[in-house]
């Protein structure tokens, strides 16, 4: 990428690889593809950090096999969201930050930590930790993700069908996740029936809307 590349909308000369028609069509429709790209990096930063944080959260739903498995679905689906959007960041001439700590710092959603301090023996001090505290962290993480992907739907709806398609597919799953955790937290904390209304996933982290490349089961 040369420094003197202009960012005005418009023509791309035949064979010119310093510009992308795939970006210029977005710019022509009023959206700054660079700004969108940076927002996508922030958004998948949050998917990546929740993939990490849900590992600890899931484990601490001890003795609650049903909660654990639903959290595992959400954990692996957030990872699938990261995998789905990374190529789009590159298509828009971006990349992931060269330091994983920067990626976490610019994530658009908060660190989803286990809501209890660590003890002196390498684990968490779980003496005051309640199942409902963990479910609340999970719920708020999903709510943040819904807001983020809704914003990206707004940004792209009129200008970028490809990113819009990804964002709405991810949003579908984040809305599933919120409904799950509303159901679980309502029952656990309030003894209230508040159904999510979904059927179970086929296998952990099935990601029915967002999985990239069905031929690659690892995504």
């Amino acid at each position, binding site marked *: 990428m040369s420094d003197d590349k202009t960012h005005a909308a418009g023509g791309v000369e035949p064979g010119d690889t310093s510009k992308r028609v795939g970006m210029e069509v977005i710019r022509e429709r009023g959206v700054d593809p660079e700004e969108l790209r940076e927002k996508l990096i*922030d958004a998948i930063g949050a998917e990546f950090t929740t993939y990490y944080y849900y590992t600890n959260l899931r484990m601490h739903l001890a003795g609650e096999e049903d909660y654990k498995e639903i959290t595992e679905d959400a954990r692996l689906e957030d990872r699938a969201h990261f995998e789905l959007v990374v190529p789009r960041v590159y298509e828009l001439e971006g990349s992931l930050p060269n*330091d994983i700590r920067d990626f976490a710092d*610019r994530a*658009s*959603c*908060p660190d989803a930590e286990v809501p209890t301090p660590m003890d002196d023996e390498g684990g968490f001090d779980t003496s005051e930790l309640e199942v409902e505290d963990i479910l609340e962290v999970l719920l708020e993480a999903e709510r*943040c993700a819904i*807001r983020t992907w809704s*914003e990206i739907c707004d940004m792209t709806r009129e200008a970028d069908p490809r990113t819009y398609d990804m964002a709405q597919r991810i949003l579908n799953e984040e809305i599933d996740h919120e409904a799950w955790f509303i159901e679980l937290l309502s029952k656990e904390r309030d003894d209230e029936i508040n159904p999510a209304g979904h059927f179970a996933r086929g296998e952990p982290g099935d990601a029915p809307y967002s999985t990239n490349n069905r031929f690659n089961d690892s995504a």
Partner: protein
Amino acid sequence: MMATDDGPDIWTVTITIPKDVDRDDAGRTFEIEVSADETILAAARREGVWLPADCQQGWCTTCAGRVVDGEVTHPHARRYHDEDREAGFALLCTARPRSDVTVVTDQYDELLAFRAKHDRPPGNAKFNDD
């Protein structure tokens, strides 16, 4: 401030949209009533004033604004520092009025630069000056 017998206090919040933002309401000023347990962002959106936001948890800084007059509090913000407050920045998604208040919206770029200058996220993670 409106007198209320029951429930929380209600304050008048004056919202100024900068002239140079890329929205139809650029340059306009709105006056809305916001109760003490409501965020300025939620009240504004309820009144049809679409302020920018993302996480709505006081983390991502998308909703940054500046308090020109009056007082706000941020009880649930996940990432809001004393130095932000001292410099007049507010995160409107979590900011609740504690007096009649005047705010300027759309200060994301400004807060990002401010955070970077103070080596705080997300500003320091967004500028490649290392």
